[in-house]
């Protein structure tokens, strides 16, 4: 992964609890986190916080596919947050697409992780999403571009936590592939996720440099 593949700016929105502007390759999203605040009585859970993820397209209304991305992000965010610490509240994560040139899901997930960390809400662990494409001759490309995704036979987005052991949080796959290919992709993505965590660490170190 090259140096300037990932770029991130934290806390650029003033009125939210946390925000992140992350670009991964040529895709860019901005994420805001609001909460925990008191929700409507119908959404309220007495022992834990609810996590609400909204995805917004650059133009137009969202499609069924976007709703699915929302669902993936929602379950991943909820798993990593300490929801028991904020009972009877809701945490709203809004993901705004700025530019989509492939790997949108992994960009959204990485950006939401940064925004949640920026908000100061307690988390069990961080997570890093890595995408990879498998070509017709079984070649694995990490962080493929748009044309490589379109010509691939299978496309994966795998999310790992930063625990000591390998901890797969989310796996989203399209296309046909064998089990061995999947395992090989998982190994490669896990190795690549280490770089993403290193990037997170550098961003946080920069923001605490004055203390």
């Amino acid at each position, binding site marked *: 992964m090259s140096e300037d593949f990932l770029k991130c700016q934290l806390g650029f929105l003033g009125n939210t609890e946390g925000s992140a502007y992350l670009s991964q390759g040529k895709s860019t999203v901005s994420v805001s986190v609001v909460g925990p605040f008191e929700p409507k009585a119908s959404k309220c859970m007495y022992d834990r916080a609810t996590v609400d993820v909204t995805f917004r397209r650059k133009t137009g209304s969202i499609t069924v596919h976007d709703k699915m991305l929302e669902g993936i992000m929602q379950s991943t965010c909820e798993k990593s947050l300490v929801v028991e610490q904020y009972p009877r509240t809701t945490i709203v994560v809004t993901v705004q697409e700025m530019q989509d040139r492939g790997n949108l899901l992994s960009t959204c997930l990485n950006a939401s992780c940064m925004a949640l960390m920026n908000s*100061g809400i307690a*988390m069990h662990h961080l997570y890093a999403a890595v995408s990879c494409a498998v070509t017709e001759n079984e070649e694995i490309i990490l962080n493929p571009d748009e044309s490589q995704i379109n010509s691939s036979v299978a496309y994966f987005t795998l999310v790992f936590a930063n625990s000591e052991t390998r901890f797969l949080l989310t796996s989203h796959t399209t296309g046909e592939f064998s089990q061995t290919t999947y395992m090989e992709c998982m190994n490669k993505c896990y190795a690549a996720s280490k770089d993403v965590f290193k990037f997170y660490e550098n961003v*946080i170190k920069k923001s605490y440099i004055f203390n």
Partner: protein
Amino acid sequence: MTLVDFNDVVLPGNDVSDIVFKGDTCKRSEKTIGPGLKSVNNKIIVCNGGVLRSKDDKYFWIEFSKKKYSPAKDDVVVGIVAAKTSEMYKVDIGASELATLPYLAFTNATKKNRPEIKVGNVVAAKVKVATPFMESEISCVEYANSIILGQLENGFLFNVSLNYALRLRKSSSKLLYHLGQMVPYEIVIGANGKIWINSASIRTTIAIGNAVMKAEHLEEEDIPQLVKNFNKSLNV
């Protein structure tokens, strides 16, 4: 596993049990973990990205920035009265929900002698009950030697970050002392990041407010320069 040390940046999910349990100044059971740390299966796990701090090898916590106030018992907070019911006020203290302030929780208040506070007024109060499962309860009752609580009249209210509010409340903060040498003023700093200021004229009140807000990202040695500029702006 990378080894972390005190005053290092840590990330959520990092395991810091090694460093917390290290040393034999006190028993393992006497060690106390604070904000940003939790124990899972006898391991100490970080849950907020920030700087690991310790005191006397006994108390451990993470210093991190957050914007949402979570009430803690005996915190002094500044709040805005948002609603009135038959026996209590609802006060916005910047937490996830409104806090309750009973009519009887004022000094010298009785059933007959109710406090006269309207919606929109500002009060300084102490947190009495703080649990995430219930609305927090605040009180304006003053005890002997306690600070003065109750309605804050006139003045100017603004918000700063929670970390900055805590820093200002520390006795090592020289800013408020220096400002006080230039012009007399009253200030209430709530642990919830709300600051109330009052002085003889509106002009000085706004000038003090600006100086306090500007000093958030300044080093301690740059404070005298800020105070100098502040004094100049008063005499224009």
